[in-house]
């Protein structure tokens, strides 16, 4: 019997490898969080449609199943001071009907960097490099203005594969909003930074060419076992020795 690794893990590992080489720490937090971390600290106002019970799972005791990994932005800074570089892979939740492109739980990858001189061009540089790492050198990128209450300026990144005349929206990002920096306990007169959030499922589905998000959560061995070492040999061949680091 040959075992297999989940496709979302394959993506997370590639992401960790890419970002850890640039000094990003992995932070993993709790899936059940407060309304403050998930919404208020990110300037998502009480009236915002995203906060409706139709979209968000609230618990009986007044907490929320995080609707995005951005919920970790402020809490992950509570015991840290800039400069920081952090990525947050994790499971998030939406209270909506499931279909081929919607699941009640799915995965995101959040990332942010704060320092005195981090600019929006660094954000573009980082994202460009990342998607080329994931999808190959030939993939083109495009950036357009976008609105998320927790960044300013905000952007949306799309990618295009060679010979396919279609842009795919991939993720939202921007410079961390002044008020969010303050909520992190960071002085916005000295520090600035970028943040991005991407759907790990979307990356995984495009990279592995499947179109139904539910496959990732059903445990169908006909699907899972396609991700064996044999079908997916590691970039440098099968592993021989361990890198030991303490």
């Amino acid at each position, binding site marked *: 019997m*040959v*075992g*297999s*690794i989940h*496709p*979302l893990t*394959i993506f997370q*590992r590639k992401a*960790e490898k890419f970002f*850890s080489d*640039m*000094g990003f720490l*992995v932070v*993993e937090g*709790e*899936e059940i969080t407060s309304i403050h971390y998930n919404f208020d600290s990110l300037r998502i106002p009480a*009236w915002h449609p995203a906060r409706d*019970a139709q979209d968000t*799972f609230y*618990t*009986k*005791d007044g907490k929320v*199943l995080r609707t995005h990994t951005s919920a970790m932005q402020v809490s992950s800074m509570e015991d840290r001071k800039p400069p920081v*570089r952090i990525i947050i892979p994790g499971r998030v*939740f939406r*209270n909506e*009907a499931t279909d081929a492109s919607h699941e*009640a739980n799915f995965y995101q990858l959040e990332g942010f960097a704060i*320092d005195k001189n981090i*600019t*929006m*061009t*660094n954000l573009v*540089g*980082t994202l460009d*490099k990342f998607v080329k790492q994931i999808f190959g050198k030939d993939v083109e990128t495009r950036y*357009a*203005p976008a*609105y998320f209450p927790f960044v*300013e*300026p905000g952007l949306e990144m799309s990618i295009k594969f060679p010979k396919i005349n279609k842009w795919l929206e991939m993720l939202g990002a921007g*410079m961390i909003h*002044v008020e969010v920096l303050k909520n992190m306990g960071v002085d916005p007169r000295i520090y600035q930074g970028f943040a991005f959030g991407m759907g790990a499922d979307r990356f*995984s589905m495009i990279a*592995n060419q*499947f179109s*139904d998000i539910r*496959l990732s959560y059903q*445990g*169908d*061995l*006909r699907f899972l076992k396609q991700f064996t070492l*044999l079908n*997916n*040999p*590691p*970039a440098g061949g099968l592993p021989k020795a*361990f890198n*030991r*680091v303490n």
Partner: protein
Amino acid sequence: MKISISWLKEFVDFKENAKEISAILTDLGIETKAFDEDILEVEITANRGDCLSVLGLAREISAKLDLSLKLPKISFEESIIKEKIDLEIKPEVKKFVPYFAYRVISGIKIGPSSSKIKEKLKSYGFRSLNNVVDITNLVMVELGQPMHAFDYEKLGGKLSLRLSKKGESIFTLDGKERKLKAKSLIAQNKNNKIIDLVGIMGGLHSEIDNSTQTIVLQSAVFDPPTIRKTAKYLHHTTDASYRYERGVDQGMAKTALDRAADLIQKECGQAGEAKEIVNSEIEKRKIGFDSQKINALLGTDFSLDSIINSLEKLNFKISKKENDLSAIVPSYRLYDIFYWQDLAEEVLRLNGYSNLQSINLDKKEKAYNINFAFKENLKDKLVALGFSETLSSSFVSKADVQLFHLDFNNLIKIKKPLSLENEFFRPNLVINLCYQAAKNPWFSEVLLFEIGHVADSESEKQKLIVLALGKDNSKKLEEAKKTINEFLDASIEIKAIETKILEKFKIKKSISYLEIELPEKKQGDYYFTDLNFTKVKMPSSFPPAQIDLAFVADSNLSAKEIERFLASDDDVILCELFDEFASNKFGKNKKNIAYHLWIEDQKKSLSESEIAKIRESLIEKVNSRFATTLR
């Protein structure tokens, strides 16, 4: 929102076609598609209520293309109307009604609109009703200002704005009775009858009809959250409420009233006399900025002149006091622009995000994420034992909880789950893994593991489950336990799923599993395999058939190569090598290789004869390609 190109051209004289103008607007952050040669399909983000009109989009285009903006010419004669209205805005609602203007207009002849107006409304998707209603709709689409026309006679001389009390109700124009909660903005007439669901939809009892001769035409600005709350609990969004929720420009409200009066005078009546009630003046918001800071945030090198120029094109007024620069926000952007970083986005937006170069972050030492790597390394080890990593739902139902003898008082209950399957947050991983094991009846052995979060009312934890179904399940679990203990000094108990539960899941084989909490690891190896992506074959919704094939092959032939060859066949969803050995009984330098194959069809269950046919064709393909023989 649909907006016509020819209407836009009345405001700004551009040469671009629908496709080109769509691209320009999209680059500005206003997602637009060309619906056809004349119609744009526009999607506005929540912060850009100012773009919900022909004028709003024309302003953006004129700024981008550096073309002048032409407002509609308004020329009419005010007329003194003898009918008067007593307008009352109760003190409790003043703060929700920053601005209210109206005209009493008489001499109205209700009738069909001119074809020009009909045409314009049609381009947006509005049905033509009558000349007055059509004009209010036209001005809303054109200038972004929702308007409302009351039948004067039905007001009894008085229009009063107040907050609703719980239990009151109104019949709206669509004929529906709507029960109100407390604190919705409403209007009533002289007889205290509620005649308007303010900012959302007019009331049936003040509706203009074919005999209407005098109207009260309203152009007002309301507090977005107040309108939003009411629209939300009534589940009733209209073109008016959609705009009010996103913020309507107080600076345009009077112009809109005049524009409507002008059109009414030309089409069907007089113009009346305008009355204005200003409960709060338009804010003069001044934001100080500094070109160096803007460039340092964006990583650009815009000159001060080009920054000022860009902001001026977007109608910010720049003022300079000694060396301090500030920008005064145009009234239609007051809902959105507060910080100098907002100005930075405006400058970047107008000049194009393509101005952002791709610059690497400063080099930094690699981070060794030991805790992440520890889990991944553990996964690799379990994979090597034959287990497949899975992810399962974070939710369980009440029935699940009872089946597994858990007390749901200790669980995290979800408030309004869309589905009853999502009633509780999972307290363990085993429940949903049993579901997954049960969904694989065509595998004689199911070996799964998952790392995921569980929670009860006390705490949230990260757990690992390893589960085996099949004849050697407890042996597999012993191996897994040994492997885990190389990483973790934990006492691990191997458990069996009780028969009653197996029966419930219709599982005929036994299941063993272990479930342990995973601690944070701060020290250890930094190692895990970096796998490549693969092109997935979609599993059929029909069951697969499992067949075994054994071949006699040259001993130097790679069994993996044949496996890959078989797995790539269209009829095969999965292929696994299960046996490989050399023996003289097959001949000199020959070996036996055997595979499990799962074959299926996307559209149907395979019949016995179809299975036999596929089997024959696979044998034939392998034999001819690899010079093997069937054993």
